[in-house]
């Protein structure tokens, strides 16, 4: 062993690398193999289905090229689902991030019972989306639900909530904001706490007021956190399913139909598996586009301090 220390750093490194390629493959093997069998293979298979007319139960696969995708373009239900999904995403992501930021700033201060409140805000995250959605579904009931009761008590007219094609999607968005609020807050809080105090102190000495400090120090230095949150939230929001499934099932009149839900119904109620796979492919491309965006943005905003 002593002899190795006398080699040049370059040679040591080279030896290190060559010896470890085998280890590398061994170590990543379980993950790669298990994913490969149980996640990658089914995904590729399904995405391939998008180019076929799939009659799974008869075992018949007819290659139809891009026909599924052409049909998608003219499918107004899918178009509506895409619009709904994008509406959902572009609404919930900024709102959640914004509210999370405000709350994080609030919680950055010291006050009694801070930890208790923090725990309360985070608590919706530990419940399963399905269970929580069921409670909310009950609360949204226009005849007996608590929301309308509260409105009535303060003299505001009762709302149809999930029953109206105009209010259903906003109602779902409200639920999702409730569910994810704590998470956004916590992430921002971590980001805030990572900002060194010196910056604030220097700014205060220079005479900058609270709002200016916020605008010129906090926000820019939170940029990586913001980017991460926006992108991560977007990817998850694009795949929203559980709460829509439980709260409205896509109605009324398709006003809350989202891509994953439409895909699900095409596959399991119409048995159009190839078509559903095409929808999945479109979604996949969307998500990939967003992820690539993140990659470039994050490279741009890497701040070292």
């Amino acid at each position, binding site marked *: 062993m002593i002899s190795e220390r006398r080699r040049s750093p370059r040679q040591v490194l080279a030896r290190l690398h060559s010896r470890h390629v085998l280890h590398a493959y061994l170590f990543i093997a379980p993950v790669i193999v298990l994913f490969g069998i149980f996640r990658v293979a089914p995904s590729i298979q399904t995405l391939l289905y998008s180019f076929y007319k799939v*009659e*799974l139960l008869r075992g018949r696969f007819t290659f139809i090229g891009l026909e599924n995708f052409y049909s998608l373009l003219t499918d107004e239900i899918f178009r509506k689902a895409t619009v709904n999904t994008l509406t959902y995403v572009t609404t919930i992501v900024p709102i959640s991030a914004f509210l999370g930021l405000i709350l994080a700033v609030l919680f950055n201060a010291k006050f009694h019972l801070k930890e208790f409140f923090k725990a309360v805000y985070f608590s919706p995250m530990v419940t399963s989306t399905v269970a929580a959605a069921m409670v909310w579904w009950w609360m949204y009931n226009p*005849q007996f639900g608590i929301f309308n009761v509260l409105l009535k008590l303060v003299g505001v007219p*009762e709302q149809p909530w999930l*029953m109206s*094609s105009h209010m259903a999607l906003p109602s779902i968005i409200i639920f999702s904001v409730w569910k994810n609020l704590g998470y956004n807050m916590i992430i921002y809080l971590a980001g805030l706490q990572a900002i060194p105090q010196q910056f604030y102190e220097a700014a205060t000495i220079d005479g900058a007021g609270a709002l200016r400090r916020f605008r010129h120090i906090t926000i820019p230095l939170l940029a990586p956190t913001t980017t991460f949150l926006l992108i991560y939230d977007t990817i998850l929001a694009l795949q929203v399913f559980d709460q829509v499934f439980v709260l409205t099932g896509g109605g009324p009149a398709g006003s809350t139909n989202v891509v994953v839900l439409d895909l699900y119904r095409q596959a*399991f109620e119409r048995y159009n598996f190839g078509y559903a796979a095409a929808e999945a492919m479109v979604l996949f491309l969307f998500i990939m586009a967003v992820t690539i965006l993140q990659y470039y943005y994050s490279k741009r905003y890497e701040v070292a301090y």
Partner: protein
Amino acid sequence: MTRGSKMLAISLAILFLIPAIAVAGAAKTVTLWYPAGDITAGAAHFADKTLFTDFESKYNVKVEAVALDYDTMQQKIFAAAAGKNIADILFVDDSWMPGFLKEEMLEPVADAKAKAWLDAVSPEIKELSDYGKGRMWGYVQYGIDVYGLTWNKDQFREVGLDPEKPPKTWDEFREYAKKLVKRDAQGNITRVGYAIRHVGQPHGIVHKHFWAIYGAGAALVDDHRTLRGGKTLINTPGGKAALQLVLDMLDVDKSTSLNFPDPRAAFLRGIASMQISETVSIRARQPKEAPDLKWGMALPPVPKAGDKPATNLGGWLYTVPKLAKNKAQAWQLIEWLNSPEKDFELCKKYNASPRYKVNWEKEPFKSDPYDQGLKQLYPYGIKLPINLGFNGIMEATGNAIQKVWHHEASVDAALAEAERLANKSIADATK
């Protein structure tokens, strides 16, 4: 290899071997899938653990009835069929049948048995069982759904209406609703004359307005018994009249409102005087939820005197998938469960209407006012279409109804669009 890695390898190996070990020899087990919860009263008997004991001892077979989540049940059935790992008996909603038939998933009932059944059961059961030319794809469960008009007798009396005389024509219907609606001091409606279902699954919306659509001479599709082809007859004067009826009740009569979207619940709570939906549901829930409610049941009203009433029939079926592993035992179980004796026993126990003609002659069914009342409704019951484009037709129609009553589209525009989408769905399904 380090010791750690060896341990890891061994434990992994054991983990993978467990399923192999678990495959032990067992007595034949027939599995049956049914929806959990209170989705349908017809599944209530599955909760009884002793239900199958006689069958099990007689045929030396184990029966395993498994409750599935209704919402994901179709997905489950599809995945199981695709994986060739499906239950032996599927207890399914008849509106799922078009999809199953399209995928050729089910085994038909043997011709001789089918004929025997169709001859022995009452006409409405025959209507639901027959899928064309005496073909049966499953046995219809007792306690079928028939939609009927139900009304609150006390509230009728309260406004001076004869509690034993339901409205027979659409004009009477509107008049009655106008008398029955109640408002508070601010003018908000606290009780509707007639509760409408206008939200939720489009299928449900269509189901609950079926009586008006068909009563007025329109139809969802021209031939109910064919799987492929045909066209919708929703965009016709009849269809328009059907939608206009409720629209007028909302806007002109102001005898109903959009705030009572669960008609059955509203009826049971006493905030809706009339509603039209599954009678079996009211029958089952009223004793528990509204013990003091006195209600009547009759055919839905018709556009004008002399027209033929229409109502819908629906039910659940015991089916055997083609890929079932124990088909012989499955059919044995279904036949045992649906024999005349069992029909009598279970219908008596669970307060449901029987299927066999002979059982209708027996007490308590013969004198039971509810069952006899149903007999008035059955002849006018129409089974839903089995067209493969069924889902699309229902969605298009349900959405149109909803848009019109939500004042988001005119009757003409909504029905024109519904017609287009429904016909497209029918055409797509034939590809």
